[in-house]
């Protein structure tokens, strides 16, 4: 079921949407501190009102070509995750009533492909996105069999 209100944004020249209730803040890019051991689309950690929050380049995670723009940060509701997504730009808030059509998409992270006055929008499934990020981290656990050496 399509949420009542969606937040539209763009990444890698594509339009995406998230359920507005899943996003708690849109921020300008801020100081980010790198940490090792995670896949390259993890840009680092930011301090969001005292919560240490992972910053992920959404385009990179989706296997799309990331744009080297300052972009915006979408901070996910802290009750759901400590995660911010770096996107290219944030657009309007879309009311469900203005959606003219909906179709399926073969990407499991996409809940639906929505037809809107702004064009085709991929409505992201946040739980699947979080699950995918977690699975990646489990898979990238350090290889303890590596021999020592300096």
């Amino acid at each position, binding site marked *: 079921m399509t949420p009542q209100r969606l937040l539209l944004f763009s990444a890698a020249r594509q339009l995406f949407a998230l359920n507005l209730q899943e996003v708690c803040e849109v921020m300008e890019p801020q*100081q980010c*501190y*790198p*940490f*090792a*051991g*995670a896949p390259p689309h993890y840009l*680092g*950690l*930011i*301090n969001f009102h*005292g*919560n*240490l*929050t*992972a910053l992920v380049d959404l385009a990179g995670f989706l296997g799309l070509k990331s744009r080297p723009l300052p972009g915006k940060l979408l901070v996910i509701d*802290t009750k*759901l*995750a*400590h*995660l911010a997504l770096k996107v290219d730009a944030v657009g309007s808030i879309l009311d469900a009533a203005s959606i003219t059509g909906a179709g399926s998409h073969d990407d499991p992270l996409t809940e639906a492909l929505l037809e809107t006055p702004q064009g085709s929008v991929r409505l992201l499934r946040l739980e699947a996105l*979080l699950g995918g*990020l*977690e699975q990646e*981290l*489990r898979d*990238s*656990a*350090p290889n*303890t069999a*590596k*021999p*020592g*050496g*300096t």
Partner: protein
Amino acid sequence: MSQYKALFLSESREYLRSIAEQVVALEQSPGERTAVDALFRGAHSLKGMAASMEYGDVVVVAHGMEDLMARVRDGALPFDAGVADLLLEGVDLIDVLLQDVEQERPSTLPTGDYAQRLATYTPSAQEAAPVEKGEPQEAGAPPSPAAELPPLPAAEAEKGKEPAGEAGGTVRVRTELLDHLINLTGELVTNKQRLLNIGRELASPPLNDAVSETAKLLRALHDEVMKVRLMPFEAISDRFQRSVRSVAKKSGKEIHFELTGREIGLDRGMLEQLVDPLNHILRNAVDHGIEESGERERAGKPARGTVRLAVTRDRDRIQIMVRDDGRGMEPRAMIEAAIAKGLLSPEEGELLSPEQALMLSCIPGFSTAKQVTDISGRGVGMDAVNTAIQKLGGTLSIDSEPGAGTTVTLRLPLTIAIIHALVVQVGQVKAAIPVNAVQRTVELSRGQIETMGKRQMFQLDGEPIPLLSLNRVMGLPLGRFPDGILPLFVTQARGRRVGVVVDHLLGQHELFVKQLGRPLDKMAGVAGGATLGDGEIVAILDLAGLL
């Protein structure tokens, strides 16, 4: 949830915990009149509270327990294993019913014929029922004579007391409020570091004095806030008594369980995370450490084995010891088992001290092999136990004497919220290592490095220590060290000491630990994060998960 329901749940659980503790204590010392009375009163109070809230199922179960205890109190029934089983079954039943109340769902657990079995219980009826394999009680045998038991420690004499409720001078506080206080205090500690940095840059004596005074006040505030979060160890201890009882019954062993230090306060968050590791250690002690009665008697020991759980506090450290008087562990057998399993080369085995050999039981993969467990008599889940203790910022050590028993000692910080950590630089990344995982730091010249096979080692106190690169482990470019000096810290990994080379040792910091939420909490080798005084964020490494 209404405030009344929250209060009911909280108090009911305290009563349940107290009842379970007293049941197990009474089994070991059936003559304790005060405990019999307290058990009766506990069931009665529970029934009254449930009745006032109109939770009928809880009333039925508690009422049956109360009646059974009334028969014991009046001398109509001996307090035997059958009574204990029924009361503990009642505790479990009510616990499930309370979960239903908490979740605001209808009761999912039928109380069945429990009330009937309580009402009609007689010792002979219990004997006719199927007895668990290895049940030490013989048909018609009287309860285990208390005369065989060593005298109970002073803390045990308090068993008869009622659970502490809201008394004069105390209040119940929501745990979220305490967590918020801790969080604010942690932020203040971080900000203090920022002020110290600014003070150094400005070189202003009055500012430095003011910051120094603020730092002292913050330390005092932190200590006080942490005390508020402390809960007595007895908040979790009933589970251990029941766990030991259950394993002893299943394995047909006679066990005397002693618990001391139940009044020692530990951080609430720490207590919750200690339950599983301590259960593992205690189960191992009973299941693998303590011998069968016959074997003990042949070895000149009392037929009944003793397992002791002792909690002590020394300033800001907590020590928990689990000691058994069982068969103990043989270091040589441990080494041979690890070699057979391919976890250790024979050459490496030769280098291990007896203490290091005992720690082999904490290597992942060591404990899973049945034949290894049989040889060592230990090991089930010890890798998980060690990891859990290290995550809490603690250490685990094992001491054992073949034939005389084993002692597992946990040393833990009083709090897990603020830690002292060594901050290191690896590539472009800074990371923090809790200082209790760091045995020492070393600056090594290249000439001190020896190559043994594929490994690079150095000598420390006459012991060859293998070298690891933290950069390599974390997938970062290796350091260059143009001055020929390699900074490293020495830690314990997989049962032996290793030197972990980093690019720079940046010094020790007082850090407020923040948990990482989804998705980073799934990342192996990271225990949390913290903000340094200049606002920089660092990951706190969990070396046990990383190395």
